[in-house]
């Protein structure tokens, strides 16, 4: 079965610190992996994706993510974090069904 786990429901850090949001997945074949961001009261916006190739992918807003097949992870990173990065972040997976499977999300709060 396909699934996505975001183990941290909430992450709080200070502006200027490095952020890393964790995502692990379960899928028997090669996954397509995504990160989306949702600002309060808004819809989901695409940040980045991993399909194949380079395991470090860069996205919008200065974010990047690293695909690690060895531990089935796709963690989102940014340094330094800015207060405007405060939002909810969703990791997602597409497998052979073509459907996006979302994690429950991580709410990030960056304190000024």
């Amino acid at each position, binding site marked *: 079965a396909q699934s996505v786990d975001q183990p941290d429901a909430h992450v709080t850090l200070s502006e200027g610190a490095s952020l890393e949001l964790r995502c692990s997945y379960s899928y028997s074949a090669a996954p397509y992996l995504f990160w989306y961001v949702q600002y309060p009261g808004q*819809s989901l916006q695409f940040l980045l*994706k991993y*399909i194949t190739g380079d395991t470090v992918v860069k996205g919008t807003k200065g974010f990047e993510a690293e695909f690690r097949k060895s531990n089935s992870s796709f963690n989102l990173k940014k340094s330094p974090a800015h207060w405007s990065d405060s939002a909810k972040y969703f990791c997602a997976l597409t497998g052979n069904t073509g*459907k996006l499977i979302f994690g429950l999300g991580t709410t990030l709060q960056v304190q000024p």
Partner: protein
Amino acid sequence: DMKVTQMPRYLIKRMGENVLLECGQDMSHETMYWYRQDPGLGLQLIYISYDVDSNSEGDIPKGYRVSRKKREHFSLILDSAKTNQTSVYFCASHTGDEQYFGPGTRLTVL
């Protein structure tokens, strides 16, 4: 600029009333989706449409139906709404590897 629209943005209905949520996209994408988002449950897939009159149930289709008569338009219908259908509903369209989400409709069923 790729755009997905949703109408209405906010809706309050009484239990038992019918509800129509509308979604449009101007990108001629074949595949479209309806999700609902609830606190603690993330996004749950209600229905998928692969093209006009080609719809498939998602993970939580009970209590919902959909209609797609034109490629650019995808409707979600609640016949006799229930209070547990209070939620935020998102429509998305899909091309290549990416989904584009609409702004959402906040539905309250009293």
